[in-house]
């Protein structure tokens, strides 16, 4: 079973929830898919046994074979290629902008001259290891890189279907999030009852409905803010699966890098109940 933990707004408590849920259940694998700024490892101090480079294939153009027909730049959805046809005896030229390339391979596949081969371009690393009995893996995008989805896909190859897999997704609603949560059996949306929290929750709900992934809401700092998030969930028939109150002890534990359930073991039972609720929802 794959459970994704996502949110529209950042800083609502995805990692707090994902880490503590992972520590409260048996036979779990936790994947931190927020490859632009992974932080779950700060709470878990895993022993990494494996490290692999994540690469994307990028085009290498043989200018001897190239006729500057422009087919490659037409099929490139990300404008990573520029073809400037030659004129009056002047040879054409072709430019490749590697930071825009998603590595889809369309240019190589569709080049009529077969003038394009590929080389690997490193975008980051995937690290996998353990925290006691818990399996853990995360991805780290290299500084300056913008292509999170290919790294997330490579990280997700680590998924161990024999275990309950918990995915800590990046914030927002864009491609890295969609790549992280696709294939999840259930998604927990962490929000807080503030105008910003609600605004971004609504956006996340739209994404999940489009993807057809069953979901529920976990309301963090649930006793602050206003009633509007509760109202919205009632109207939209969305279950609030768990409420975590605002508690300075939780913030203090977080600031020391301690998982919530380690600092406050009484929460273990609440996370076990949350897991049971998820299983009930999926089996319905």
């Amino acid at each position, binding site marked *: 079973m794959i459970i994704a933990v996502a949110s529209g707004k950042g800083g609502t408590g995805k990692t707090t929830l994902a880490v503590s849920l992972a520590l409260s259940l048996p036979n779990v694998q936790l994947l931190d898919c927020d490859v632009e700024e992974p932080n779950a490892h700060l709470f878990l101090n895993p022993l990494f046994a494996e490290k692999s480079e994540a690469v994307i294939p990028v085009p290498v153009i043989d200018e001897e074979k190239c006729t500057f027909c422009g087919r490659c730049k037409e099929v490139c959805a990300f404008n990573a290629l520029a073809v400037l046809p030659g004129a009056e005896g002047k040879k054409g*030229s072709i*430019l490749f*902008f590697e930071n825009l390339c998603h590595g889809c391979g369309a240019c190589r596949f569709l080049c009529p001259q077969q003038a394009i081969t590929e080389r690997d371009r490193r975008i980051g690393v995937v690290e996998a290891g353990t925290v006691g009995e818990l399996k853990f893996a995360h991805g780290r995008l290299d500084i300056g890189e913008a292509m999170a989805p290919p790294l997330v896909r490579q990280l997700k190859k680590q998924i161990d279907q024999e275990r309950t897999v918990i995915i800590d997704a990046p914030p927002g609603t864009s491609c890295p999030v969609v790549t992280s949560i696709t294939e999840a059996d259930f998604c927990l949306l962490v929000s807080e009852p503030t105008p910003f929290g609600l605004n971004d929750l609504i956006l996340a709900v739209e994404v999940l409905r489009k993807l057809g992934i069953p979901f529920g809401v976990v309301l963090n700092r649930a006793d602050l803010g206003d009633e509007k998030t509760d109202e919205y969930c009632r109207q939209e028939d969305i279950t609030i699966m768990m409420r975590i109150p605002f508690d300075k002890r939780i913030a203090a534990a977080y600031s020391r890098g301690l998982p919530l359930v380690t600092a406050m073991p009484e929460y273990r039972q609440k996370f076990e109940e949350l897991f049971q609720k998820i299983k009930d929802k999926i089996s319905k």
Partner: protein
Amino acid sequence: MKVCITSRGDSLESEIDPRFGRCEYFVFLDTESSDMEAIKNPNIISSGGAGIQSGQLVAGKQVNAVLTGNVGPNAWQTLRAAGIEVIIGVSGTVGQAWEKFKNKELKPVKGPSVDSKFGMPAE
């Protein structure tokens, strides 16, 4: 000699658009003839690579120089690969810039003037 001026509109009275890749219009003028052509820029909505696309569009028109406000690194590389001179810091109307260019008051630059994504519209 043919030039391209980035513009907010499609006439000589239009203001210069200070962005290259995401300008509203490209206005093409020729010293040999009095022809003027204005093209609405299809790359404004592009999520990335607008400068590259606009550079190719302009290169396809066989221009010798581009007159604009600023140019980013990718557009710069594309325009230079096509052998096009780039003149930045141009302001006022298209007509005024055109006159200055014909009087040789404008000089090409040697490098891009802004970073990628400079011309992205504000939310």
